[in-house]
């Protein structure tokens, strides 16, 4: 090793060290990519729904002009069952009540929530379906509610909202009034306050209510989001099905396959289109989680780009080094082959000798044992 090091020139040493450092940076970037990839839980519903794979999570975002109604979504839901049946996708879980797919939708709006002490005008998200399965916000108190629950008079506050209304986070089970109607606080959630979260729209208090509450008692800006996790027997099956059957024209719709958006290959594919990523010709306002996800997409794309660069450098160096070594090699393939063959034969000889000695010893001990038996 010492001899090898002494044989290197200064330039070679510097290049070697820089190559190694570049590779280490690549590894660090790869680790960062892997960490960031798994950070956004709202994009990993497919993985949570079926850890074995075979599921895809697809999200749709609508413009206000799409005028999506609950009836339209109900019709679409019924069509999913037929589509899966036609594709011979069936439920094979031993649990009879297991569901093959699940979905959720939401609408933005504003709502006024009153407690005995104070009143809060907050940004509201009216949810339907299993919204909190898709968006498992960190619960500080209580539990989630679902659009499929028996009662629809639940609400979830974020910690700011709970503080403003009650001065505490431990308020699950208490009652607030929305347009004079009592609503039960199902839980209190933590609101992300990172740089991306604030830029994505999480800079103010949010109240989660049922869609029917928002429609009846708040200001409803219309359903702007629908997502589904469903079997994906072939690549892009779920994405294609949702895009074609959701019943909204392209100008008012954006469909995203969440389950593959953070994969390395997708991020590498996004590099050439990076300049046009920010352009949006559709009048669609994304909810905060989609804005955060798009922020992460950009970050991961940049990381992937730099990762490629930092990998390319040592790879090129290594390639050049190997080429040089090959050019100045002192061995031949035949020589290596003969050396290896010779080594192999020697080893086999040694093994044969050992077996021979072993057999002789065995025979010797057997003869002695037989003699002793005869003697007795």
């Amino acid at each position, binding site marked *: 090793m010492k001899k090898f090091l002494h044989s290197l020139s200064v330039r070679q040493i510097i290049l070697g060290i820089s190559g190694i450092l570049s590779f280490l940076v690549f590894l660090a970037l790869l680790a960062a990519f892997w960490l960031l990839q798994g950070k956004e*839980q709202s994009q*990993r519903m497919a993985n*949570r*729904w*079926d*850890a074995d794979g075979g*599921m895809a999570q697809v999200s749709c975002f609508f413009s206000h002009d799409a005028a999506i109604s609950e009836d339209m979504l109900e019709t679409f839901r019924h069509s999913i069952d037929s589509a899966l049946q036609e594709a011979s996708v069936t439920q094979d*879980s031993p*649990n009879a*009540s*297991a*569901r*093959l797919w*699940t979905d959720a939708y939401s609408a933005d709006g504003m709502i006024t929530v009153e407690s005995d002490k104070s009143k809060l005008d907050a940004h509201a998200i009216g949810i339907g379906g*299993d919204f909190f*399965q898709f968006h*498992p916000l*960190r*619960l500080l108190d*209580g*539990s*989630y509610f679902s659009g499929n629950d*028996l*009662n629809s*008079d*639940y609400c979830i506050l974020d910690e700011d909202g709970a503080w403003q209304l009650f001065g505490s986070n431990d308020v*699950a*089970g208490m*009652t607030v009034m929305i347009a*004079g*109607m*009592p609503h*039960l606080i*199902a*839980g209190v959630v933590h609101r992300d306050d990172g740089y991306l979260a604030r830029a994505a729209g999480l800079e103010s208090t949010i109240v989660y209510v049922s869609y029917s509450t928002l429609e009846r008692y708040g200001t409803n800006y219309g359903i702007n989001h629908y997502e589904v996790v469903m079997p994906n027997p072939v690549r892009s099956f779920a994405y294609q099905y949702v895009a074609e059957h959701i019943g909204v024209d392209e100008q008012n719709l954006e469909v995203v396959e969440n389950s593959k958006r953070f994969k390395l290959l997708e991020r590498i594919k996004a590099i050439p289109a990076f300049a046009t990523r920010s352009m949006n010709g559709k009048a669609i306002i994304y909810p905060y989680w989609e804005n955060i996800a798009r922020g992460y997409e950009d970050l991961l794309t940049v990381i992937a780009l730099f990762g490629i660069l930092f990998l390319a450098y040592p790879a090129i160096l290594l390639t050049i080094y190997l080429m040089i070594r090959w050019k100045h090699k002192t061995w031949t393939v035949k020589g290596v082959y003969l050396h290896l063959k010779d080594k192999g034969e020697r080893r086999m000889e040694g093994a044969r000798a050992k077996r021979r000695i072993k057999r002789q010893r065995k025979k010797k001990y057997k003869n002695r044992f037989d003699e002793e038996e005869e003697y007795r």
Partner: protein
Amino acid sequence: MNENGSKRRDWVKNAAIIFLTIMLLLTFFSNTIMNYSLPEVAVQYVQSGSITTKIRGTGTVESDDPYEVNVKETRKVDSVLVREGDSVQKGDPLFLLADVESTELQAAKDAAKAAQNALDVAVTSLELAILKGDISNATANNIQNGNVMSFANYQKRMESANADVEKLEKGVEDANATIARLESQQGSLAGSTPDTGKEQEAFNAAQNALNADPVKKAYDKIQDYAGKIAECDAVIAERQEGIVTGYITVSSGDLVPILSVSDEEYQIALVNRARYIELMGKEQETVAVPEAKAEYDRLLKVYNDAQAALESKQNSVTNGTNAIAAELNKQRALLADTTAKLTAAQDVRADLLTEIEMELTGGTSLTGGSSIKDLREALVKAQEAVLKEEEKSVGTTIEAPISGTISSINVVSGRETDPTTPAITMLPEGSKFSMSFKVTNDQARRLSPGMQAELVNSWRYDDVVVTLSAIRPDPENPSQQKLAVFDVTGSVTDGQSISVSVGDRSANYEMIVPNSAVREDSNGKFVLMVESRPSPLSTRYIATRVDVEVVASDDTQSAITGGLYTYSYVITTSTAPVVAGQQVRLADN
């Protein structure tokens, strides 16, 4: 050499010491380090308990039988004498109205007046049309009464008028043709002259013979004498009348009249008359001779015949021309007459068409829009509307029609009442209350009439009892929603909003967990149970998946069945996602 070896040994020794120290530290603190990387979870143990599935809703209390006090006209309110919540007896005054006609009555009267004016104008136009002769009385009557004959009738009348016109047009055409033909004939006859020599000779001879006849001469003389006698008679008569032509003053100074016939003239007239009479007598003796008379007659006849023959010959063209002229005149007269009749018939036809049009349209061309019949009907309706408004008119004091409680007042002093809105709504004494709210089909399946509902914040209500009385389809969305209707008794008022919860009776379950502990994926619902595994350094906690089925749930907890035991620990919340088989750390309590 030895120095190098020594240095190398020291270096290796130091590196080994450092390495071992680090390994020892990591080993001792590995648990702590690892713990901080593990997700922190909150757990709750599975316990038995009861769960009551409740359906919550809020509705507005309404009286089952509210009584609306209506004022069916728009009148200004002077003052309102009661307030919401007041109890009143039948006949108590509720509010006072201004003592003026209602807006509706005034409007109806104005409309009736306008209808009358319109009708008057239309009738006047019709009368003027009659006076001008534009339409007949019969047509005017039909227009006034709106009588419209059948189309067949009108068609028949027009056909008759058209037939007359056509007939007269044909007559005019024929007359014109005849006139043209006669004029042509007349033109051809005008140039020709007849030969009358023989006839002239015969006539001359007959005339000469007659003139030579003594009887003829006698007749001529007689005629002459008669003329003269008449002249004498005239003079005599004038003298006898004593016609005075002037007066003269004589020497004596007297006025003596001057007669128109002098004495001399008178005497001459007398004498002449006598002479002429005598002479005439003598000539009459000549005429009286029968043979002479017969001869005269014979000569006269011959003369007349000769004259006639001559005239006839002379007038053969004239006769023909005259006949044509006469015929021509006759035809021209006929043409003029027929033309006049044609014009008259055309006028009659035009008038008939006008009258029919007026009858069919009800005279709208005269009235400028509506027919007189319609205007008359409109007037009747407007008058009926006035009567109706007058019937609806109430006095100035509105009294309570029943005993009860004032639940809502919709009138304000100084403003007008609204006929479409009840002025005051009352709750009759002893009336019942009900309340309803919408439920989903799923919720409705868990309800049954007769269930008692609990009031939210029941401490606010003393004696209020709410009972589910019926579940009906929601008229707005009958396929997806129902209406849960409740009977409400106790101290409530109409319009009050109350929140209730109603549902199944409580049921006990062996395993109850918080709702946040129940998770779901494609294999169904499950909980993550925490299993503790002791190890030499510390106890490790592993999250284990247990498939469960949720049999009941309420707002905060769910009853489950599955492969776990009571008093097992289940994960409710965590700082990071937890998957089955993952090690976790418990949250510090």
